[in-house]
């Protein structure tokens, strides 16, 4: 991440303020990351993404409003250069599979902790698909 010319711009989509706050704090203390803000629902995500041009979008799977998987699919079609990491407390195989199928670049289990989160954001920005340890082991079942 050091060799990137500019910081990785992050947008957070989560209705849980605890998560949003924690992530914002985490990024503001980590060099090479730039917080572009957060929204509490995926409904307007397409517009916000176009406006703020984040590199990586962290999207909670379990939110009221629009089906986040549909939103990911739309994003993949219309803003392919903005990559989505899905964040979830539910780590179920079918959810992971569906996320990858619709175009997500990463899937991170909340239980995997901040390290996994930070690493995922960096690697996805580099163009890798990242599954956090718990997600990977769930997929292997």
């Amino acid at each position, binding site marked *: 991440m050091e060799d990137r010319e500019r910081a990785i711009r992050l947008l957070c989509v989560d209705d849980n303020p605890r998560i949003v706050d924690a992530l914002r704090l985490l990024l503001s203390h980590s060099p090479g990351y730039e917080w572009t803000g957060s929204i509490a629902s995926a409904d307007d995500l397409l517009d916000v993404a176009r406006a703020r041009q984040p590199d990586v979008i962290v999207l909670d799977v379990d939110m009221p409003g629009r089906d986040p998987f549909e939103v990911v699919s739309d994003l993949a079609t219309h803003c392919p250069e903005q990559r989505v990491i899905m964040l979830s*407390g539910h780590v179920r195989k079918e959810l992971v599979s*569906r996320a990858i199928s619709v175009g997500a670049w990463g899937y991170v289990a909340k*239980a995997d902790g*901040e390290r996994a989160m930070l690493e995922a954001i960096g690697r996805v920005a580099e163009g890798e698909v990242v599954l956090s340890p718990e997600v990977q082991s769930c997929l292997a*079942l």
Partner: protein
Amino acid sequence: VTIPLGKGPLPPEPTVRGHEPAEGFTGTAAFAKAAIRLVFEPVSATGAMRAEARDRPRPRILWADDEAGMRDYVRTLLEPMYDVRAVADGEMALREAIADPPDLVLADATMPRMDGVELLRQLRSDPRTKGVPVILLSARATEGSPIDGLQTGADDYLIKPFSERELIARIGVHLKLVAAQREAEQRVTRILENITDAFQVFDANWRITYMNPVARSFFARHGMDPDAMIGKHFWDDLFPESRGTDNSRQMDRAMTERVPVTISNYHATWDTWTLGRFDPLPDGGLANYFQDITERKRDEERLSVNEQRLAADLADMVRLQMVSTRLVGAGDSTPLLLDIVDAAIDLTNADMGLIQLIDPASGVLRIEASRGFEAPYLAHFVTVREDEAACGTAMRRGERVIVEDVETDPIFVGTPELAVMRAAHVRAVQSTPLFGRPGRLVGILSTHYREPRRPKDADLRVLDMLARQAADWIERRQTDEALRASEERFRRYFELGLVGMLISSPDKGCLEVNDRLCEIFGYDRDEMLRLTWAELTHPDDLAADLAHFEAVLAGEYDGYTIDKRFIRKDGRVIDATISVNSVRRSDGTVDYFVGLCDDITERKRTEAALRESESRFRSLIAKVKDYAIFATDERGIVTSWNEGCQEVLGYAEEEFVGLDFGDLYTIEDRAKGTPANDRRRAAETGSAKSDCWMVAKGGRHFFAMGATTGLRDPAGRLIGYSTVLRDLTQMKIFVDELANHGASLERLVTKRTDELQKTTERLRLSERMASLGTLSAGLGHDMGNLLLPLDIRIRLLLDADLAPELREHVIGIQTCAHYLQRLSSGLRLLAVDPWATPANEVTEIAAWWDEVGMMLKSVLPSGVQFSHLLPPDDCWVAIGRVSLTQAVFNLVHNAADSLRERGVGRVTVSVQEDPLSDTATVRVVDDGPGMSEQVVRRCMEPYFSTKTRGVSTGLGLPFVRGLVGRAGGRVEIDSELGRGTTISLVLPLALRSEPDGHLNRIAMVTMRDARLRSFIEGQLRALGFDVRRHREEGEEPALLVVDSAAMAKLHEEPCLRKPVLVVVGELPEAGDSVVPGDLLVLGRKPPADAICRALRDAAAVISLAHA
């Protein structure tokens, strides 16, 4: 003279040719004789001395004397010139001499233990030392002593006292003699080694003392060891069985009478001829040289056999010529056939014989001439069918049949013919087929014998020649007869009047006409004979006929057939078909013409009407498209076409007409003869319906409904068939599918019912678990929502500049968070339906425990202690993580329940490996109240519970048993009231999944979609693959993952070993794409879990292929 005299018979007259060497011993014999002289005749000392070589090493002398003073004196005397070995007695001298033969032995005559005379005797009797010169010294001054010494065979004898000069001179002479002799011997040996004859030497006692290489290889070739033969007695040791034969007596004569003999000998065991010569040698032995003349003998024999055969052939020719002359001289046919029979009897030394000719009309054999048979025999065999008796058999086989004895030959045994043969006193017979020029059988020539026998081969050869001549003659005769008969027939035909006939001269005049012709043209015969046919011809048709006529005259062809018009006497025009043939003179010019003329006026009119109606019909059916309607001739060859043939069968008109209708049937039907059967049915019953699969153009099969109708002319003769076909494939398929559908529907219902039953069962067992799972999932989610912020904030705190005391607190909080994290991850395993996980998963115990230990502990009441006992790392069991977790969770939960009331106790989870039985036992032990015997018996039943409703999980143990049983393990319960409960899960150990160093784990991913590619690469790494994006030099990937575009380009970079290929996308059009060994095609936009599954399958295929 051959050495080995075998046991086999000797030739009738053993060649003994006195003293002259036998022929064949040319150069080598002379060499050998010279050699013998050189070796065995006395050598003059002077000559030998000159021959002494200058560069020889110092001669070695063995010197024996018991008197020490004398010994030293002589040694000192000789040492300047020779190497001297001095010993004290005869025994020592003998030992030394044999161990290393010296050039000369000098010995005192009187010595203790062994005196000089005995030493001399011993030396002479040993082949190694017999040639060493010996000089004896004696102190005895008696008169006779020197002579005694020489008589013993000593080379010289000196009496003590002797002068130094005398001793040195004597020694010098003998050494030179020895040297000369040795050199001569070497020269001879060299000669003997190089001659092409075998050579060996016998001593006077028949012991072999020498063999040259040719002799050695001769004996070695016959399995004897030449080295072992040296020194052996020729008769006693080597060839005792040859003693006493004539040849051995000759050899003895050479030995005893000292005369050279030459012997030719056959050794039966070796099947070998030798020619050899024995020459007496001056030392009383014999020199023998011999040659292996087996090949020469064989050639001579072959020559002699050939000469005999030629002589026999010549005699046969003479006999045959005599018979032929007789045949040619014969006149009328029957006597001639009898002549052939007589000749055959004569040639085969037979007692009787007969000739049968084939009756062209009936194809049976008919006797035409016979000799020596009575009427009953001839009556019985007057006609013979194919395969009857010997002649019928010869007829069928087309080759000669020989019956050596009619009583035993299968041709006659058990047939009525045998009795007839017996009555005619025939015991043996041969039947020779007579073939005409083109290989046509014209008859059979048989001869018979009164005694069982087989004719000689030579006789049969001559009989063959006779048969050929006879067949030629018979055929010629038959041709003549046929010609006569056909002339006769022609005459009758001419007069019969079915068609008009005309014999015309080359100038078109009528030479002869029949009544019918007159009738056709309306002239009477006399008028006709004055007319030319050209005058009768319609002027418009004359030119065409004349052109043909001139061509025949010019010799271009012999005849022609045309349709033309004539004009009758009454002026009416008639249509006729004429067929003209020429009869030529021997110079090729036309003698006369034979013309046939058929009035076809009526037929033409009928044809025209028919054509008209047919064309109407045709234009009608030609427009029909759904039905192929066509006609065939009586053999089934297609003669017409309609558009339906194109529609239904795919054939254009020009392709279809001329086709065999049978070709439209399937291969199976053709093999069964269905086409012919259908035609026959159509011919017999008027029409044949057929609903069957047929073959259209290009091999396409279609289901045809068709009918074939026989077509007959007005006279009722069958002239062909008409067929109508319709393609009912779609309907057939529909009907078949409907039938199939019913069956598969039924199967499906059965299957679904089964599945439903099983699912219901499982559902009943797992519904409680499922609710637990839902709980776990929800809990996991909530905990995640709390854990992540917690984790982040702890991290930020730790990054901040904290007082050490505070930092300690934060680290404590972090530890708790991590515990929570693990608890949450253990819960996840409870949230999954174990039955939905693959049945063949394996679990490593230590890693598993890390994941679930915390969660299991959380199940227990706070007063209950929890401990575990695990095997060291790398213990793999053959059950999935989810199943194992849920099974153990249930057991721990039960244990917790049993201890809840008491509030204190201990629960231990242990895992123990037993490599002997290839199992690992997972035990959950509690010290709770235990179970009664009855409860132990029943506790595996579903819904059996000891606990109060609402508290019990109810289905714990049956559920556990289901999971463990699915993994191939079993559950054991050990419990007693008051003694606690131990439940053991005995699970099979998994095969260690150690990475195999030889297994090729290189995977290459080539696809345009970077996201999908990265995902796949990640999954491949998780499966243990080395992932590449580009092919590296010399690397052969085991697995290729490609998208459709990359798939289409695979052939540009072919792999030597076919990798497993996973195509994420659709398979490109077949053609130039490479089809690998194993192919998994995922289709467009496959879901991620399908990709994962395919990659796992591919990995399994690779491991499997490797194994």
